[in-house]
């Protein structure tokens, strides 16, 4: 047993091992992630690839690596005998003998021996040897302190740790912890007991991370590979829109189309009645937004004033204006304590609710027609500052970043996690930008029509995996965000669809507003769902209220 013998039919040998594995594992199945089914593994003899054996239909998996990570997984699952048996039967050792020695020494606390072994492993990078030695000696140091052997600890620090000449800051912290024991608690992560040393298993894990993966295989490597594959399957699933879809390892994951809203549930204003008419604006109202607590409304007249209203009573609470200038956009702070507004002299102003101006950014910060948004942490204000550029203004750090496009920008939409921006362009393209660290163009979406109006788009669906947009051809467009593929173009409206809004808590519901004066609510095409609002023959139109 052991030794790869080429004259023995390889397929037969492999067949034996797989069966034997299943045999030993106490009735529970061994989880194997294989490219291609396990049937393939048994049927095809492994090809020699310049001396290295490979498995799988694509010939990219090295057999030795494959067996080692399976053995590692068996050990992690607690199947020690199975793991040992696999190593024995395949002749492939999980770790070289010297590593096994090293691991044993670390777990048993033979510090000096383990440091010596470290040097014998055959690592080429000096820094790794030093960092690993440092970790081991640090453990030795803390274990001495826990046993109240202060002099021994001090000796270790002086004669063994310091001469390594690395991590001087840490060395200082260590010396401080001798002098002031209480200080030590803040220095290290808190332990459940008063022991200052961490567990030796934890130390081994830290060492594992330092050493090259070929020398010491990382923990949970097989699980990580499987999760990666499942993640890729999920990302590639274009219709994935339901939480209760469980992903099985036995078949590639693919949702059916029926999870995307595609059926107009409601078109008329059934069950909705007029509560208040908010009068006061002298010019057309260009935007309306709810306060974070849903009790107030903020409205903006085109180049006029911004008004704050109490929703339950319909009363106007405040008017925000600037002499000789007109407001062009408005928004709430995430905590509802202040509001901000774009002005037609290109500046952006911040106001206290009572009307006092808090701050004003003068200069080219916004345009007459521009969206104005704020990230949910209240830090960044976003607006279109030039025809082809969007400004991301960090209020606190006073830093300005710019998204530059080649085409004129008509509108944009911020994702709920503040990481992405959907930018609508004059040339009928929608661009997805990542705005978290570096500003990067991630995807483009095409298909909808825009020639005259501001057409809005939004994120939506489970984990905001979809992009939806209105269009001048009366259709509602839905793309899969990851792949950029157009999934649906929903007919129904009889005029340009100006904007869409995906229900933030229900991934199966979407609303759209159109020039045909209706708002449509879209849901799943599941006719068995209770429809208490529809009339006998379905849907009828009604002119929207005032």
């Amino acid at each position, binding site marked *: 047993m052991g030794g790869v013998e080429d004259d023995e039919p390889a397929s037969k040998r492999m067949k034996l091992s797989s069966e034997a594995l299943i045999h030993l594992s106490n009735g529970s199945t061994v989880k194997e992630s294989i490219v291609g089914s396990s049937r393939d593994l048994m049927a095809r003899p492994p090809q020699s690839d310049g001396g290295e054996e490979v498995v799988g239909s694509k010939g990219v998996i090295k057999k030795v690596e494959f067996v080692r990570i399976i053995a590692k997984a068996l050990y992690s699952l607690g199947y020690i005998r199975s793991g040992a048996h696999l190593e024995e039967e395949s002749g492939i050792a999980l770790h070289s003998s010297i590593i096994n020695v090293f691991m044993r020494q670390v777990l048993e606390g033979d510090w000096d021996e383990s440091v010596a072994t470290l040097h014998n492993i055959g690592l080429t990078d000096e820094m790794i040897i030093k960092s690993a030695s440092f970790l081991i000696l640090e453990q030795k140091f803390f274990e001495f302190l826990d046993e109240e052997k202060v002099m021994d600890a001090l000796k270790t620090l002086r004669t063994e740790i310091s001469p390594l000449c690395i991590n001087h800051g840490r060395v200082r912290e260590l010396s401080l912890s001798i002098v002031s024991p209480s200080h030590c608690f803040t220095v290290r992560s808190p332990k459940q007991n008063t022991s200052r040393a961490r567990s030796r298993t934890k130390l081994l894990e830290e060492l594992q991370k330092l050493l090259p993966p070929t020398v010491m295989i990382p923990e949970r490597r097989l699980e990580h590979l499987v999760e990666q594959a499942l993640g890729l399957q999920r990302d590639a699933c274009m219709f994935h829109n339901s939480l209760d879809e469980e992903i099985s390892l036995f078949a590639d994951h693919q949702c059916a189309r029926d999870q995307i809203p595609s059926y107009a549930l409601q078109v008329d204003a059934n069950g909705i009645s007029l509560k208040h008419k908010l009068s006061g604006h002298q010019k057309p109202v260009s935007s309306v937004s709810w306060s974070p607590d849903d009790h107030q409304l903020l409205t903006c007249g085109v180049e006029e004033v911004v008004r704050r209203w109490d929703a339950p009573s319909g009363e106007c609470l405040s008017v925000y204006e600037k002499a000789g200038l007109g407001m062009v956009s408005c928004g709430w702070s995430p905590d509802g304590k202040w509001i901000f507004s774009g002005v037609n002299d290109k500046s952006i102003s911040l106001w206290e609710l009572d009307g006092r101006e808090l701050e004003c950014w003068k200069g080219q910060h916004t345009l007459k*027609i521009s969206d104005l948004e704020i990230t949910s942490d209240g830090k960044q204000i976003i607006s279109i500052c030039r025809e082809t550029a969007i400004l991301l203004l960090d209020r606190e750090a006073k830093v300005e970043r710019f998204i530059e496009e080649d085409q004129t920008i*008509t509108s944009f939409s911020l994702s709920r996690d503040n990481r992405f921006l959907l930018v609508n362009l004059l040339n009928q393209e929608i661009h997805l930008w990542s705005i978290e660290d570096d500003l990067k163009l991630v995807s483009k979406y095409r298909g909808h029509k825009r*020639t*005259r*109006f*501001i057409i809005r788009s939004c994120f939506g669906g489970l984990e905001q995996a979809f992009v939806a947009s209105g269009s001048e051809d009366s259709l509602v467009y839905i793309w899969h965000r990851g792949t950029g593929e157009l999934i649906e173009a929903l007919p129904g409206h009889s005029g340009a669809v100006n904007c869409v809004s995906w229900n933030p808590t229900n991934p199966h519901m979407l609303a759209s507003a159109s020039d045909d004066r209706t708002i449509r609510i879209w849901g799943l095409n599941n006719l068995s769902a209770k429809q208490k609002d529809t009339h006998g023959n379905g849907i009828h139109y009604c002119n929207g209220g005032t």
Partner: protein
Amino acid sequence: MGRLFVITLEGSVYSCNHCHTHLALLDDIISKSFHCRHGKAYLFDKVVNITVGEKEERMMMTGLHTVVDIFCVGCGSIVGWKYESAHEKTQKYKEGKFILERFKVLGPDGSNYLVNHDAMVSGSDADNA
């Protein structure tokens, strides 16, 4: 109607004489020596707030060109055309540029242009480079 997306220009602006939507800047004029049925026309490097019509082959004073008519986004009235391609080499300089009919726009000083009925120009185009 939905909310129109219009770009606001700064400087000396030519605008649509029906709805006053900004169309182009004085600085972007390449040539003033063009003609159309209604009289004078200017060649502009850049025009905003317009939509385009279908491509057409038109025989102009300087030869065959592929053009698209351009319309103001505000009111939809036709304001001129855009040269998509020119068939003759000497006319290539017009490609991608726009013609605004002087009759259809308000000048930067707000002035309108009165059609000269006497000088019935026989065709459109001109400015032989």
